[in-house]
């Protein structure tokens, strides 16, 4: 007989022993669900994904008592178990235990907004039919008095038949009480109480059919599922049921549809009837009018003034992103520059390795990490605006301007964010409940002119537009370039929504939550998570692609190229100039240079020579790279920026072999249009791929933007030529 050796427990915090229990936090949106989740699990949380489901899942660890831990899952907020958004579907499926990769929760912790009892109880009445114990946490209890509401908690607990407790995250004792209550419910077998479903929800005949369905299926169905099957088909359930069971249920459904004496609407009405009765027993409202809040709200949502304020708020956000992020970005750039230089000088004997590490890896990864401050600031603002309730008002105001395209007010924030950087913009589209509307928003957001396009515009405008047309038209061009993306995006959204994706017109039924003071802990977790994800996952893709681009611009590297340049330029005395010529010669015969020459015929109708083509090809990973690439090509060293006078002069002096100048205002504008619309940012493509979990749509984004850029630049250039410009 073997004696069992004592086993060391693996310190993998989130590997779950078979006997560990799971509590799912459920509730309506805006009921303080995240606050409750964060204050129960603290920092012991992570984002998990259900395989095949495109919704992130927050999982935390909760110590209920000494040595007694359980998993806490934060399910997406939902108004009903009859889901309409992918978020709500995940919540419903998780509650019913219909997600193959996840175990069914052992207990549901329902957050109920104490100031909005009647509507919140609707979800409770559905949850009472799923056969799981429920604990109700009443949130917003701290504002009850201010709202003129008095609530009889004991009475409510009696009506609901499940443990009901007030919860205030700011009050430690209240968090402790909830923890103890949950421990009591989960410890010992069978002590947790199942809620008693409210009576009179189902008309007698319906009730009979529901019970028949439950009786006649091999897989146990909850009462809610059976009742839902009575009126609606359900693909997920039909997979767990036997075919003959599905047929039998179809027959019963047809019978009910013919009768028209009972409808799902009637059941919903009955749920609310019950909720109304409960509320009338336990709640007393005295008409406290919140005059100050109402007055502020009236201004913020005023049809004209509100729009002005919204634009002002957004202007401030962008101002903050630009000004606050700049020192941090400079700092990051300095660090990466220093690292790059140190690596270069440490590896001076191994030029290939030095170039790989300093130009390729450090340069490539650094060009991504430099966006981190913008991401953090923008996400902090979005979290702040959302948690305070202002974002819902902004969506209310903006809806009218976007509705014709099939987008709704919720698309506005991702689009606005994309003017700073498409990456946080695309990530911000998570607030959108409908998958297709979110898809459209993600696909058009990268068209907004981001801050990385700015240096390209500035270089070309100051070199070719301002000297010819003056400062006014220079400023106008800059403005027009920023407007171009938006002007193209709206009809495109219309096309995608109404013609291609056929996005169903979704109800824009948006709750306007009361204004609230955001909680720092919630903001911090959101910002931290966004920053972490951006750095880790987009960073790994950038890392790999940086090496590829470096490789293409560095190889082949035949020493004869250098010897040839030295031989041809013996009269050149300046070491720097010679070095620049060598760099340019290497670039010209590198794979990237050959690609440029090979692809030049494609770009010739747009007015570009092979050098611009190289710049474009090299700029696909990150559009601002074109400045460094042009600098290398025009022998001014790769260390140039948009203020570089040497680069400007060389570009102005550049000629074709027949002596015609390469650049004209027409070519410069054509190039700017190309950059305004083209998908030249691998971080964005990678982020889109990650957010949509679809390589196909990421590829679509790349090809449609690049195609659009090509067509617009082509038409513009050819029209310009036809009108006699050159």
């Amino acid at each position, binding site marked *: 007989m073997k004696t069992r050796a004592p086993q060391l427990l693996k310190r993998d915090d989130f590997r779950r022993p078979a006997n560990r229990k799971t509590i799912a936090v459920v509730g309506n949106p805006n009921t303080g669900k995240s606050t409750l989740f964060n204050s129960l699990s603290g920092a012991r949380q992570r984002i998990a994904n259900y395989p095949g489901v495109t919704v992130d899942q927050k999982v935390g660890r909760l110590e209920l008592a000494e040595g007694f831990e359980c998993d806490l899952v934060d399910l997406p907020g939902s*108004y*009903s178990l*009859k889901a*309409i958004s992918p978020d709500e579907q995940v919540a419903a499926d998780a509650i019913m235990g219909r997600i193959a990769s996840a175990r069914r929760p052992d207990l549901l912790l329902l957050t109920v907004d104490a*100031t*909005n009892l*009647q*509507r919140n109880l*609707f979800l409770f009445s559905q949850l009472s039919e799923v056969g799981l114990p429920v604990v109700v946490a009443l949130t917003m209890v701290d504002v009850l008095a201010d709202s003129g509401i008095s609530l009889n908690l004991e009475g409510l607990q009696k009506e609901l038949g499940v443990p009901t407790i007030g919860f205030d995250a700011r009050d430690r004792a209240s968090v402790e009480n909830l923890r103890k209550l949950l421990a009591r419910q989960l410890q010992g077998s069978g002590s947790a109480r199942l809620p008693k479903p409210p009576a009179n929800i189902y008309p007698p005949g319906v009730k009979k059919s529901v019970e028949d369905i439950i009786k006649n299926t091999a897989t146990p169905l909850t009462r809610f599922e059976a009742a839902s099957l009575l009126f609606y088909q359900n693909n997920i359930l039909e997979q767990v049921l036997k075919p003959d069971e599905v047929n039998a249920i179809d027959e019963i459904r047809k019978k009910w549809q013919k009768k028209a004496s009972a409808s*799902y*609407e009637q059941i*919903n*009405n009955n749920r*609310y009837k019950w909720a109304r009765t409960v509320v009338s027993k336990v709640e007393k*409202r005295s008409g406290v009018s919140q005059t100050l809040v109402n007055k502020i709200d009236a201004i913020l*949502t005023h*049809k*004209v003034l509100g*729009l002005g304020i919204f634009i002002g708020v957004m202007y401030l956000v962008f101002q903050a992103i630009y000004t606050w992020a700049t020192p941090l970005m400079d700092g990051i750039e300095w660090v990466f520059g220093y690292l790059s230089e140190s690596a270069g000088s440490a590896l001076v004997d191994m030029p290939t390795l030095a170039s790989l590490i300093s130009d390729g890896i450090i340069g490539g990864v650094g060009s991504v990490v430099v966006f981190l401050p913008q991401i953090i600031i923008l996400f902090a603002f979005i979290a702040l605006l959302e948690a305070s309730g202002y974002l*819902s008002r902004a*969506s*209310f*105001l903006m*809806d*009218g*301007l976007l*509705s014709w395209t099939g987008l709704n*007010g919720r698309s506005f924030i991702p689009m606005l964010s994309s003017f700073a950087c498409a990456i946080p913009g695309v990530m911000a589209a998570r607030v959108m409940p409908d998958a297709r509307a979110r898809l459209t928003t993600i696909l058009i957001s990268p068209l907004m002119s981001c801050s990385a396009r700015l240096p390209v515009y500035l270089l070309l405008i100051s070199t070719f537009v301002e000297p010819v047309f003056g400062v006014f038209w220079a400023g106008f061009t800059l403005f027009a370039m920023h407007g171009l993306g938006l002007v193209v995006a709206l009809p495109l959204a219309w096309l995608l929504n109404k013609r291609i994706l056929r996005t*169903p*017109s*979704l*109800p*824009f*039924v*948006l*709750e*306007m*939550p*009361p204004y609230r003071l955001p909680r720092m802990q919630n903001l911090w977790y959101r910002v931290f998570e966004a920053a972490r994800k951006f750095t880790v996952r987009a960073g790994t893709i950038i890392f790999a692609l940086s090496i590829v681009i470096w490789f293409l611009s560095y190889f082949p590297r035949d020493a004869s190229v250098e010897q040839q340049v030295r031989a041809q330029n013996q009269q050149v005395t300046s070491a720097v100039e010679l070095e620049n010529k060598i760099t340019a010669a290497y670039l010209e015969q590198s794979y990237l240079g050959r690609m440029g020459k090979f692809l030049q015929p494609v770009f010739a109708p747009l007015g570009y020579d092979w050098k611009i083509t190289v710049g474009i090809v090299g700029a696909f990973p990150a559009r601002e790279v074109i400045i460094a690439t042009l600098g290398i090509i025009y022998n001014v060293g790769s260390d140039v920026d948009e203020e570089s006078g040497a680069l400007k002069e060389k570009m102005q002096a550049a000629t074709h072999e027949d002596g015609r100048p390469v650049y004209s205002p027409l070519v410069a504008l054509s190039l700017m249009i190309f950059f305004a619309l083209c998908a030249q940012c691998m971080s964005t493509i990678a982020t889109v791929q990650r957010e949509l979990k679809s390589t196909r749509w990421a590829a679509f984004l790349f090809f449609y933007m690049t195609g659009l850029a090509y067509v617009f630049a082509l038409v513009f250039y050819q029209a310009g030529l036809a009108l006699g410009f050159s």
Partner: protein
Amino acid sequence: MTIADLHIGSSATIVSVDPGLHAMRLNEMGLVSGETVTVTKKALWGDPIEVKVMNYQLCLRKDEASAIKVTIK
């Protein structure tokens, strides 16, 4: 008469919700027959509309609002 016909500040009782694409969600959000709704705001061009129902604020598009029949008390 529907919610879309109501002026800002006026209240009415819901009679029925037209069965349609969004009837279910309107229903589930508390727009059920017998409830009182008050129109609290309208955006530019009268769309969307903000209403108060069951003591909370809800924003609807005109299309949805015109699917909800009401009667003024």
